């Protein structure tokens, strides 16, 4: 189709918004670790961004969106962006390069979320290698399956902006890696106070802001569907913020970190659903997400699991709930799909399958990769380096 300047303007703006989410994750996480690891945490987000940007241009985009090979993976036909041009292709109204770039920022933020489990203990060289393997072997195939014409897409599973590809995959990968990398020294023994809560709140603000590009941009056009996704995103975030706040208030005081964690939970849950459900369903989806992810966080802590910054409980479980909720609340009034509430059991099961597959694939491959890297070059820094902190030991800097 012919290029539409309005649609293109919106996609370019959305891409910039989503780009900001990667440092946003960095500041969100960086504010929550201990003082001696703040820079390390933010630096990881920049390094992720640079690394995946190059990987994606060289071959990642092609693996995800290149010519389908048996429903499993894309071919290398688009490697180096050969043939990815300034004109729209197919039914698209935006430049092929804009679509590629928009997908790039999704790939980067996914790996950024995953840094949660590496917090305060990862060796930077090992992280670089692991990250490259992970984005190639976990993210790229999943993106192909769901969005690139792969087999999950064929199954009819709905995922508007990446509940499975981004959030479930990052969250459950984090869970798997947590089992391999082990707890931070002193976890559960000393209190580990967040270094800089205002910084974490800044990160959350950037995330909320950027998420409008993430979800509303996924309409790939500046149209009514984008507006719907925008509203659903914001509404779910607000509802999640309020229920997490209420739940944590009930257990003590309403921490600011709880408010924003709830918002992120709502944003995550809205991600697969934003283009399929309406604003009132968004309230339910977000509200459940806030309370549910809060509970999952408590469960994680109770189990003594050091998945340090809750990629699993918020992104993994929030994404899981959002994907299922899409199968429940999808409404023909919004888009041409219906869910369980409209009597469409098929959609609901398709969602469950997609969730199951994503969970299993992400968890399994990540576990194997983490063991591999750990067994060869070691994922963790030495005990002394961990004690001194990664800022000094890995970067030679002090916050």
């Amino acid at each position: 189709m012919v290029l539409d300047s309005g649609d293109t303007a919106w996609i370019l703006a959305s891409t910039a918004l989503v780009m900001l989410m990667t440092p946003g994750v960095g500041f969100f996480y960086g504010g929550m670790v201990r003082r001696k690891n703040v820079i390390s945490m933010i630096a990881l987000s920049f390094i992720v961004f640079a690394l995946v940007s190059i990987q994606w241009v060289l071959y990642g985009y092609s693996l995800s969106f290149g010519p389908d090979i048996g429903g499993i993976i894309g071919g290398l036909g688009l490697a180096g962006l050969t043939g990815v041009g300034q004109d729209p292709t197919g039914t698209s109204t935006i430049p092929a390069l804009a679509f590629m770039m928009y997908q790039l920022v999704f790939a980067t933020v996914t790996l950024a979320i995953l840094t949660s489990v590496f917090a305060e203990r990862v060796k930077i060289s090992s992280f670089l290698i692991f990250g490259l393997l992970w984005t190639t072997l976990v993210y790229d195939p999943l993106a192909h399956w769901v969005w690139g014409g792969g087999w999950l897409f064929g199954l009819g599973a709905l995922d508007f902006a990446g509940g499975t590809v981004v959030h479930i995959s990052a969250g459950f990968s984090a869970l798997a890696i947590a089992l391999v990398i082990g707890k931070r020294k002193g976890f559960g023994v000393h209190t580990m106070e967040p270094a800089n809560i205002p910084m974490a709140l800044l990160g959350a603000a950037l995330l909320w802001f950027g998420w409008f590009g993430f979800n509303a941009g996924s309409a790939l056009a500046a149209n009514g569907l984008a507006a719907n996704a925008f509203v659903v995103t914001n509404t779910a975030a607000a509802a999640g913020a309020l229920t997490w706040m209420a739940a944590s208030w009930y257990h003590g005081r309403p921490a600011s970190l709880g408010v924003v964690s709830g918002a992120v939970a709502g944003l995550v849950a809205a991600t697969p659903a934003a283009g399929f459900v309406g604003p009132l369903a968004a309230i339910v989806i977000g509200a459940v997400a806030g309370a549910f992810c809060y509970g999952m966080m408590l469960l994680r802590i109770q189990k003594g699991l050091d998945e340090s910054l809750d990629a699993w409980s918020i992104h993994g479980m929030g994404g899981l709930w959002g994907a299922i909720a899409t199968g429940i609340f999808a409404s023909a009034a919004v888009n041409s799909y219906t869910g369980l509430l409209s009597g469409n059991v098929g959609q609901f099961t398709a969602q469950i399958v997609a969730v199951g597959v994503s969970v299993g694939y992400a968890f399994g491959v990540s576990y194997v990769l983490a063991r591999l890297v750990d067994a060869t070059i070691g994922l963790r820094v030495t005990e002394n380096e961990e004690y001194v902190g990664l800022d000094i030991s890995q970067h030679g800097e002090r916050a």
Partner: protein
Amino acid sequence: MKMIQAIIRPEKLDDVKRALEEKGFIALTVIDVKGRGEQKGITLQYRGKKMEVDLLPKVKIEIVVKDGEAETAIGTIRASARTGRIGDGKIFILPVEMMARVRTDEVWT
């Protein structure tokens, strides 16, 4: 009276505070400091080279106690701050000639 100055690991502060509390030492002052001991901080290996991280964050606790209580306070701090690894810290005792409360006109010597 005596001023006990104990330089300990930051992560041990809660334990020490609690231990002191149990022994009846409530009042105290806490200061964030950096320090190095005789072994010059921590030496890291880095691509063949050695790197010394010499000023590590520590916490200094100051408690002023009656002469007879110093022994107990020191024992309590030692027991609760110890991990057995290098960097556990030091304790100093300084003489205090007088202590006064600001709120009232009370004075202790």
